[in-house]
Structure formats: C-alpha cells, structure tokens
C-alpha cells in the first residue's frame, strides 16, 4: 500500500480510458462511420470519373480524417469533467503532464490508429493509386497523433463550456493546417512517384514537438477550466 509509480499510474489511466471506450463502442464506431459517409459523398458531388477522384483523393482523405478527429476531440475530457473525476486528477500527486499524455494516447488509439488502419479501404473507394496507399497509412498514423495532441488543448480549454463544439473548431483548426498540408503532400508525392519520406519526417518532427509541448498547454487548460 504505497503511492504507485508514475509509469504504473499512467498505464492504469490508459487502461481505464480504453475500457471506458470499449464499453461505449458507439463512440469508436461513429468517427469511422462519419469517415465512410463523407468519403462516399465526394463521388456524388464531384462526379464518379475515376481519374478526377484519384486526383483529389489525397486531399479528400486527409480533410475527412481531420474533421472526424475534430468531431471526437471535444469529448476527451468531457465525461470526466462532468462527474468530478477531473478534479481528482488535478489533485493527484502524479505529474499532470503524463496523465494528459495517457488520455490523449487513449484517444489516438481509438480514433487515429483505427482510422489509419481502415484508410486503405477508403483510398480504394476513391481510386487512389496503390503507390499512395502506404504513404497515406503512415502519414495518417503520424498526423492523427499530432491532431489528437493538439485537439487535447482545445478540449481542455472548452470542457467547462456547455457548447464548446464550435469554439473548439475555431481554436484548433488553424493548428491542424500544417498537419493537413504535409499529410496530403506526402500522399501526393507518393502518387507522383517522388519520395514521401521527407514529408513523413516533417510530420514526425511535428509529432515530437506536439508530444513535448501540447500536454503542457492541455494541463494548464484543464486547471483553468476546473477553476472557473
């Protein structure tokens, strides 16, 4: 009976969040369904010509992934704020930076990672050339992790507001833009036969920066939200 080690505590938080997510499968399924629905809209709007779709596919897939991430990041801290768990987390002797990282990691595992895993199917729907699919997978893998980390900041700042959904979009969409630019550029490069690795490297650099800085901002945002 002693204070658990920080690593153990974070592993337990991660497990708690994953169990909570698994017991609400709707929350896991919704972003994927959203992704599928919106991707299915584009052939209707742009016309079903395979060549046109293939041209637009990298941009479409990345924008839809971004929006579906935006849809879920609102809820990262919501239920814990409502039931008082967040207060207890802030009073914990454990470093909030790492706790926040555990929350965001759980969010990424059930949204970004799943999205990256199923993205080849949607890429085929839009007739993305096979050479682009690998780049799409890896760019989404790295990029959605950045999106989850940045989305956590917005979620922390708006968790105390009744209708934070709109505000969170305004707050974090500008920060999503670099990820979108380099993510879709990686796929376009791969499609046109040039190497995607430089773009993936830049996404990796963004991820490193986000891992280092975003949890600090998120932790500060949570303290402000609980204080208010």
């Amino acid at each position, binding site marked *: 009976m002693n204070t658990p080690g920080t690593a153990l505590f974070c592993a337990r938080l991660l497990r708690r969040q994953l169990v909570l997510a698994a017991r609400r499968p709707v929350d896991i399924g919704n972003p994927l369904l959203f992704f599928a629905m919106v991707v299915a809209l584009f052939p209707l709007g742009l016309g079903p010509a395979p060549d046109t779709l293939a041209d637009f596919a990298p941009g479409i897939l990345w924008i839809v992934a971004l929006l579906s991430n935006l849809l879920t990041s609102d809820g990262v801290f919501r239920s814990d704020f409502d039931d008082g768990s967040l207060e*207890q987390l802030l009073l914990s002797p454990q470093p909030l930076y790492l*706790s926040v990282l555990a929350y965001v990691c759980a969010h990424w595992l059930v949204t970004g990672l799943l999205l990256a895993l199923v993205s080849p199917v949607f890429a085929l729907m839009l007739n993305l050339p096979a050479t682009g699919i690998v780049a799409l997978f890896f760019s989404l893998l790295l990029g959605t992790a950045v999106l989850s980390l940045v989305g956590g900041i917005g979620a922390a700042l708006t968790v105390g507001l009744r209708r934070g959904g709109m505000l969170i979009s305004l707050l974090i969409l500008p920060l999503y833009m670099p990820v979108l630019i380099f993510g879709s550029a990686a796929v376009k490069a791969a499609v046109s036969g040039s190497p995607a690795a430089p773009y993936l490297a830049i996404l990796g650099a963004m991820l490193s920066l986000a891992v280092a800085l975003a949890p600090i901002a998120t932790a500060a945002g949570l303290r402000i939200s609980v204080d208010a």
Partner: protein
Amino acid sequence: MAEDLSLERGGRQLFTGLSFAVRPQQVILVEGANGAGKTSLIRILAGLSRYGFEGRVARHGPMLYLGHHSAVKALLTPRENLAWHVSGESQYTDDEIEAALSRVGLHGYEDVLSHTLSAGQHRRVNLARLYLSRSPLWLLDEPFTAIDVSGVAELQSLFAAHVKQGGAVVLTSHQALNIDHQVSRLDLSAGVLP
C-alpha cells in the same frame, strides 16, 4: 492552514479576513446558509480554486478531497472505479478494495457496472475511498448527501476514528454532527473560528 482569506462572488463579499489552521485531531464543520461560500472555501483549501480569492493557503502533506460530484464512472464497476482511480493516491490490493466496499454496504456489488447502482450507492462508492485513504487531512463537501441514516451514523464514527488516529476532517454539512469528539464550528457568516 489558511490566512486572511477573502472571497467575492458576483459582487457580493462572501467572507473576509478568514484565518484558521487545521491541526491534527480536529474536526471542523463549515456552516452557513446556501450560497454562503462553503463549497468555494473547501475548493480553495483543496487547491482547485487558485484565482479569484485573496489570501494565502498553505498545505502540508497529502489530503483527500471529496466534492459534490462523486467521480464514479458509470461504465466501470465499483472495483474498477477504486482500483483505477484517477487520483493516483495509492495502490490498493483487491482485498483492501473489497473490504472498503463492504464497509460502505456494497458487498456483492463489486463487479456490476456502476450505472445500475442508485445515486446513494454511487456516493457510497466514492465514500469507500475514505476507508482506503491514508491521507491525514480530509476535505469533504456535503459527504452525507443521498446517504441513509445508518450510513450517516457509520460515517460519523469513521470520522471519530480518523481524528483519534491523528487525522483531521474539514467538512460542510447541513446536518448536525453527532460524533464522539470535539467539533469546531466555522460559521461563514461570522468569519471567525471560536
């Protein structure tokens, strides 16, 4: 320990010049009408409110804060709620958790999902943390809400046992405390500790 606390909400001065220290073996009952600032005071003491008040609060050693919200996840079982508690305060064995849950009358409910429990049972899952806690200072905001008569009596004897072991309890309640120990009253409309 609190020094010279003043709080203003919505243009109204709730309390001013409030100074007191919480010592071991002390039970402090914070009293006052609805809106007198009891919850705000507890949150300031806990360190959850860090701005919007004047004065200084010094905390020594770990504390346990139980607020209005029960911090119980409906989609976790009572056992999981305690074992994976976000406060990260301590690590408990299965036996300790079972013992604590049966102390609050939830024996047999350890492994059912919490959303099937009543509001009072939710509160009891949260109160089980008192039986597990090793923190000397307890800050409790309305701990008796939604708890039945025998539960209140048991909590009060738990408070008495805790202060006899050198702990301290600061609580807000609209109920009279009937415990086997001296209770200091802090009336927020008066602003001084007699």
